[in-house]
């Protein structure tokens, strides 16, 4: 096996496009996962069965089916009902929705970890439900779970190549396209592996630092 530095050089412009798309999918997917996960977690705690039950069923369903199947469903099946998104948008929705069911569990653990005395103090002060959540419960719950949420961002980064299968040319997609055209798979695939670790490892160090600061 020969290593060809000129192939690395040739791959660079496409790699850059791929990195940008990966980061785009990651940031937008995380935003969806963080927001939607919180909605799920709060809805699951609702005393209204008509709210909590369907949400529990939906999140269990999404969490227990493969992301790849969900991506294919969103990209190839939804158009049957005339719902069509671009590959990137589909990828972002797929990643965000799938991971929202994990972050929901994380939020739930965080909310359960807030002592019952905090709820009682809110009742004793007659704080409205919305204020109880926004000013007292969530700030305490989320602070505890920031590191766990961060770990899911890293997991999502590592799952992001799946969106290549529906044609979103993130890093892996670019590498595969490049190697198909040049018959040189070694360099591009190796390079994206290195780039993944260059993003993921500092990110996990950051999470560990956050954990030390936030969770005591």
């Amino acid at each position, binding site marked *: 096996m020969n290593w060809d530095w000129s192939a690395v050089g040739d791959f660079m412009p496409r790699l850059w496009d791929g990195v940008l798309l990966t980061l785009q999918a990651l940031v937008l997917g995380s935003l969806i996962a963080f927001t939607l996960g919180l909605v799920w977690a709060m809805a699951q705690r609702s005393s209204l069965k008509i709210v909590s039950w369907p949400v529990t069923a939906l999140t269990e369903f999404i969490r227990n089916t493969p992301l790849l199947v969900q991506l294919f469903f969103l990209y190839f099946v939804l158009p049957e009902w005339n719902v069509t998104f671009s590959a990137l948008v589909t990828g972002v929705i797929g990643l965000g929705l799938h991971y929202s069911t994990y972050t929901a569990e994380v939020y739930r653990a965080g909310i359960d970890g807030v002592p019952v005395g905090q709820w*009682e103090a809110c009742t*004793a002060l007659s704080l409205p439900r919305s204020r109880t959540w926004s000013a007292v419960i969530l700030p*305490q719950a989320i602070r505890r779970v920031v590191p766990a949420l961060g770990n899911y961002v890293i997991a999502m980064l590592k799952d992001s190549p799946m969106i290549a299968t529906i044609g979103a040319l993130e890093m892996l997609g670019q590498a595969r396209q490049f190697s198909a055209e040049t018959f040189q798979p070694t360099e591009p695939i190796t390079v994206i592996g290195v780039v993944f670790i260059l993003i993921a490892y500092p990110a996990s160090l950051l999470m560990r630092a956050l954990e030390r600061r936030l969770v005591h």
Partner: protein
Amino acid sequence: MSTDSSTSKETKNPAADGSELIEFKDVTKRFGSNVVLDNLCFNVASGKHVTLIGPSGSGKTTILRLLMTLLKPEEGTIKVAGDYLTHEERGGKLVPAGERHSREVRKKIGMVFQQFNLFPNMRVLRNITEAPVHVLGLSKDEAEQRARELLELVGLTEHIDKYPTQLSGGQQQRVAIARALAMRPQVLLLDEVTSALDPELVAGVLDVLRDIAHTTDITMLCVTHEMNFARDISDDVLMFDAGRVIESGSPEKIFSDPEHERTREFLSAVL
């Protein structure tokens, strides 16, 4: 005081001059098959300081938690300042209270907890202003003014910008007292407020409460094991046993000349 119904078992409050602020009528509370309060009737007149004593498990704390709507009674009614707490009247009928109704009635009641329950994510000042701003609709300035006055009362002015975890237990409890008073409640519920404190911190908290008891007209309902404190601030002492009031009267009478054997046993164990 009043004995509202023929089923009332024990109500021997001395006659109160003010109007009745708290009225328990035939209140029963069970946890599973365990009857914690058994057809309880008692009233507290406005402005009175009443201490509930008795062995643990006798239902004292349950009474405070019922008043704070942290628990619901299985039977009976509770009135606060003439309004039903756990029920509301709708079309001439008494139905279980909705959230809005109980929140309105609850505003008249403040509570201080054994474990303080300050909000650890807020500084001392905002712990106190949060509810006045978002429940009573005070402006931020008005609420902060009120908070500063209360912090002076509890002697913690210099800690206004600290987080609860930076304070000692005694200081936290004094903030919690200020936080409850900031809502200007008519009734203050004190649930074993010194039980979680190191012994050397108890006096500071009790001094603040004595001060409040002697200088304001707030009604106090107090569960405590500090008998000297109870003697100091109470107008009435109610002795509980097995979910009933078995004896009540002035602190002088209860502490020095109790009628009931169970009261004598209890007092000799704690004094």
